[in-house]
């Protein structure tokens, strides 16, 4: 594309003239890069450098070594924070999947108008203020809130829904739904529904056709959505801090206390390294699984 523009543009600009060899010059080929440079510089200064500093700090603050890591993995209380973070993320992923799967399936069979409405409903909360939604859950789930009043009608409760894992999960799953629904829907909408008809014409009951034909074909969406939800929930801060119990902190709350309250930069950095390494590992595994899945499907064909 740049090559197409060069002859005309070079009329006015000597610098862009192609060298005699006939191959376009460096500037002519790479001028688009110059447009990316300002954004990259801001990213380097306010994102890459700070994050790298944090990771380096994990090994150098207060002095070089791995003492921050031995502090973190050496105390059962700290390891409990990590396992709690993982188990909360796992629960959030499972609940998300259970709710999002029928929802995404409904989107594939609904009329175009209903589908657009369902999509909008998933997307709008994605853009609704995190603070506002967390505050709303706080009001609904409090001991004298609507949910407990409703349960009280049946003689149940009141349950301690806020300051508990239930509260954290309710708030988290609602926020994470788009990350599960969108990949599921994009995979499901690509599944040839005639395969279901074919399975049924061969004698499979609809439920069997669904479980043995549709569900296996939708697994790439399940993998992508679950990974996205799991990774995102590992780094949640606001929802667990406001809806969860202070005695059951997740890793991001723990990082906040160590850094903001106690100025233990090295410890915060060490936890950042653990969190980031886990994230990268999971994304790598997802990439490998996707590639393997593609290869298998190609082989089947």
């Amino acid at each position, binding site marked *: 594309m740049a090559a197409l523009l060069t002859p005309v543009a070079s009329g006015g600009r000597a610098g862009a003239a192609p060298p005699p060899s006939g191959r376009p010059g460096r500037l002519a080929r*790479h001028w*688009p890069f110059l447009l990316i440079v300002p954004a990259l510089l801001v990213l380097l200064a306010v994102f890459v450098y700070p994050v790298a500093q944090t990771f380096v700090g994990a090994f150098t603050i207060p002095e070089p070594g791995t003492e921050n890591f031995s502090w973190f993995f050496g105390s059962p209380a700290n390891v409990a924070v990590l396992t709690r973070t993982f188990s909360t993320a796992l629960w959030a992923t499972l609940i998300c999947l259970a709710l999002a799967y029928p929802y995404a399936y409904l989107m594939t069979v609904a009329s175009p108008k209903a589908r657009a409405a369902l999509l909008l409903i998933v997307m709008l*909360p994605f853009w*609704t203020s*995190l603070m506002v939604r967390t*505050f709303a859950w706080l009001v609904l789930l*409090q001991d004298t809130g609507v949910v407990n009043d409703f349960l009280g009608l049946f003689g149940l409760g009141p349950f301690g829904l806020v300051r508990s894992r239930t509260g954290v999960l309710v708030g988290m799953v609602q926020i994470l739904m788009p990350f599960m629904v969108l990949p599921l829907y994009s995979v499901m909408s690509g599944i040839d529904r005639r395969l279901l008809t074919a399975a049924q014409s061969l004698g499979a009951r609809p439920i069997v056709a669904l479980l043995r034909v549709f569900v296996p074909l939708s697994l790439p969406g399940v993998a992508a959505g679950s990974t996205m939800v799991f990774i995102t929930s590992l780094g949640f801060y606001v929802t667990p801090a406001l809806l969860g119990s202070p005695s059951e902190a997740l890793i991001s709350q723990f990082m906040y206390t160590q*850094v903001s309250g106690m100025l233990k930069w090295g410890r915060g950095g060490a936890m950042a390294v653990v969190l980031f390494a886990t*994230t990268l590992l999971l994304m790598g595994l997802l990439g490998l699984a996707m590639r393997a899945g593609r290869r298998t499907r190609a082989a089947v064909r």
Partner: protein
Amino acid sequence: MSARLARAALWLTGVLVAAWLVAPTLVVIPLGFTDKVSLTFPPTGWSTRWYANFFGDPAWTAALANSLLVGVLVAAVATVLGTAAAFGLSRWTSRRGAAAARVLLLAPMIVPGIIVAIGVYAVFLKFQLAGSLAGFVAAHTVLALPFVVVSVSASLGTFDVRLETAAASLGAGRWATFRQVTLPLIMPGVVSGALFAFVTSFDEVVVSLFIQSPALVTLPVQMYSSVTRETDPTLAAAATMILALTTVLVTGGLALSARRNRAR
């Protein structure tokens, strides 16, 4: 019959999930108009005293003004940087370079916010940017950039490059071509990117919690510290206003994206 039953069950699940996604957030609206001091739902009487309280309290009005100011600046900076970057990415003939740059530009979406927050806080303390307007704008710009890049890239994907060749063949320089041909055609993507950038900044909590100072508090930070201290319906009034503003902006942004898709 059982097929119809299954379909009904599917729709019921879908409607329940949809209600659970949207309805809980809406409780804040009536709560902002309650005449009680407590956050009991549903309210039994109505008043606008919590809105009066919001606009009479300098802590809230200053936070609102700060959030609007930071949001507008972030939208401007992120849109200019992101549009230029997306345009560069779409024209860069080095595939490997473009792919690497794209990964870097989208990375702030994937790295957990708390990691960015800790890092930015440390660097800002070192350079005395914590609690400064420039600091807030810089930090939020980084988080908003991916949304602009994605939005503008989508517009550029449907843009017919031959139009630029045509403009160039008629003697227009690169800048004139961009200004008069490309930019007007990708405008929906640019505007929706700007709206998303504003909303990203306007809603941002985690990084802001770290880099705030008594001199500069944004609305979500003010809400956060207010929730942890005491809860009075002023919070619901603030939440309602945030909800109204972001809903208008995001609906606008999504409508622009939809128009872009229809044009395809």
